[in-house]
């Protein structure tokens, strides 16, 4: 990774990854991949998920080669709502109705540029529910992460 000099005029850029329910296998894999790509672009990734989603990541990366800060999802929502903290980018993992609700919430409470990562068996139906401003990155990915990984590479959200 190239060294990046941080100055007061160049504050560290941050990205919040809002994890959904980990019942769809690609989530953990894609989260680690996205963390890797963001870090390589000099963007500090912060993960917010429920206990199961966070534990899957922490188990997959026990020495924290990729993972940085990991926090409880409810705590992240509270901190952003209370204006205690915010991020430059926010990626919301969506494979069910709750994921759409979390994305809409992040769009309303955060100033971050919002990305909706839509996947799973019913990704096309979920996309129709997204009627708020965001960049949608979507693919029919359940067990195989490659379609979603390809969609992420094409969108290159770390470069925007």
């Amino acid at each position, binding site marked *: 990774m190239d060294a990046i000099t941080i100055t007061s005029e160049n504050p560290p850029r941050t990205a919040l990854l809002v994890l959904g329910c980990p019942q769809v296998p690609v989530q953990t894999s894609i989260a680690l991949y996205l963390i890797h790509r963001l870090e390589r672009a000099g963007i500090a990734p912060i993960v917010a998920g429920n206990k199961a*989603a966070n534990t899957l990541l922490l188990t997959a990366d026990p020495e924290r080669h990729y993972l940085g800060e990991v926090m409880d999802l*409810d705590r992240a*929502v509270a901190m952003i709502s209370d204006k205690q903290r915010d991020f430059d980018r926010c990626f919301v993992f969506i494979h*069910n109705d*709750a994921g*759409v*609700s*979390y994305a809409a*919430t992040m769009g309303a409470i955060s100033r971050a540029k919002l990305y909706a990562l839509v996947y799973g068996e019913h990704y096309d139906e979920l996309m129709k529910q997204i009627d708020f401003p965001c960049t949608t990155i979507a693919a029919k990915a359940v067990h195989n992460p490659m379609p979603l990984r390809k969609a992420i590479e094409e969108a290159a959200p770390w470069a925007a």
Partner: protein
Amino acid sequence: MGCVESMNYEILLRDATFKESRDYIREHFREFIDVPPGFKVFDVHVIGLPPIAIGLEGNFVVFPYTKPCHGTFLLRVEDGEEATRLRALKK
């Protein structure tokens, strides 16, 4: 459910979509207020697509509670103080 667990709540809907929850409140409660996502009801920041409906019925507050793996629950909690606070927001 965090602090929600300590509440004496009744579940009116479980594993619902956000829209089902909003429609239920609007159809079943004559009195409700619309709030933005992140709005605090008790100690819960509500999740959902704006506007989010909160039902009021006497001393009872009815609000959606969303979890990533279980969808949206519609909870009914008795608390006159909170109901009064929310009612005052309508004015």
